[in-house]
């Protein structure tokens, strides 16, 4: 049903971007993985929030990352969790990813194009993009 095998049933069409997340989506549309970084103290932060948790600054820059990472934790959704997911349901693998180049920042996404039982913490992964529209690309991860 999705671009990838075992792609989660995601229906997001509008990321409701604000000044702190727009940079992520702008980079995503260009196929770049970017992360919020405090302009004042350099701390990476996810989710972007409106304040740096380390120093309180509201100023951010977006730093482009290499797009590789490591699975920190994951799960397998074995059954549709809601009726809207039942048609054509495919097992999917929500995962939390430690992104290379951004220590302390973890992305919450899913591992795709891989047998669910093969995904485990510690697995090396790289980002892949599902181009939903010209303005919106969603990041997933797949084994390197």
């Amino acid at each position: 049903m999705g671009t990838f095998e075992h792609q989660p049933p995601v229906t997001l069409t509008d990321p409701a971007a604000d000044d702190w997340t727009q940079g992520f989506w702008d980079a995503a549309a260009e196929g770049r993985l970017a992360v919020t970084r405090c302009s004042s103290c350099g701390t990476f932060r996810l989710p972007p929030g409106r304040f740096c948790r380390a120093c309180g600054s509201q100023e951010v820059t977006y730093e482009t990352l290499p797009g590789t990472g490591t699975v920190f934790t994951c799960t397998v959704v074995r059954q549709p969790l809601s009726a809207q997911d039942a048609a054509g349901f495919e097992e999917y693998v929500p995962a939390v990813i430690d992104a290379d180049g951004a220590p302390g920042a973890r992305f919450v996404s899913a591992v795709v194009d891989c047998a669910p039982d093969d995904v485990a913490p510690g697995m090396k992964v790289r980002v892949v993009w599902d181009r939903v529209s010209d303005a919106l690309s969603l990041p997933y991860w797949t084994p390197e």
Partner: protein
Amino acid sequence: MSLKDEAAVVGVAVARAEGADAQLAMPDLAIVAANAALADAGLERADVQGFCSPSGVCDHGALASQMGVPEVSFSATLTSGSGGGAGALALAAAAISGGFADVVVTLSRYESAPRSGGTGPNALLRPPPGAAASAYGLSGGPGPDGALSAPAALRSYGAAAALTANAYLHRYGISREHVGRWVVQARANAGEKLSLDDYLAAPLVIDPFSELDAAPGIATSYVAAVVTANVERARDLDQPLVVIAGAATGGSPINGAPWQGPAELVASSGHRDVAADVYGMAGASASDIDVALLADDFSPWVLMQLEDYGFCGVGEGGTFVADGRAVVGGTVAVNTHGGNITDAFARGVTHIDEAVRQLRGTATNQVPDASTALVTGDPGTMPLSAVIMRRA
């Protein structure tokens, strides 16, 4: 200065409503429970001066008005949807210690919400019928931050909890058999028979959870009422004196940024700070606890809290349970009533009630001569909470 030994639990009751009555409008069921707990204490409605509860239980003004309480001098609820009854009881003890009130009723509830949609019954593993895919703010909104985690399609509290549970289980090499031994024990405590083979055969819904690993949604509504009183006043009442020796709420608010922060903290129950605080106030340690009523929306939470409350080392929760140390007659008796996973997602509704029964010596699965009990609130969102009660 602290609230140590200033307040006593003098009355408890759990009111249940089933079938058509399960949707009994609040505050009706709360009034039934509160009146029963007052009767247990030997107190009257006119003695009540305050109300405490976790968030969203009921409006204390409507409750006091319909219950016929003449004047209220303290009213407070915990923030966040979690935290459980232990934290609300901490508020009551604080109110009494701080001189706001001499008698406070703490209420906690489980509202029956049988699940529909044909995808199974478990309330925690699946979102409520009609809920947006954005439930729990983790699945694409609402809001800009939630959109960044939309690709995970986390639909439920259970899906989010599974990510935390797997971080813990993987980090310490804890197997499904270890967790299963706890579930089998919890069922036995509740008087139910479940074999480890049956546990392992149950189909997974969200790894590592089958239906047996999460508190089920059931067609019974509960309200638990706990009456606390100034310890001097409590001495004049009929029930054995059970004092609140320590209480703590709070914890590290990493839950505002799920799975961020130090790996060891993310892969824990999050209770370590609360444990240090509650033990510090009570002047107690794990070896003093006879019975532990641990919040257990999900089965691994029990193993994680056994570690974070110091009953065993970090990463040893699985073997502690498998070695039979978490039972009556073991190192510490845990969830002697079975807990939420054998009953309902009840915010610890029955945990405080069971702790008090154990300390009075009237529990069904009684720990011989139990004198000190620990009750914890749910891991999950800040504030976490814990209370230590002692038979004086």
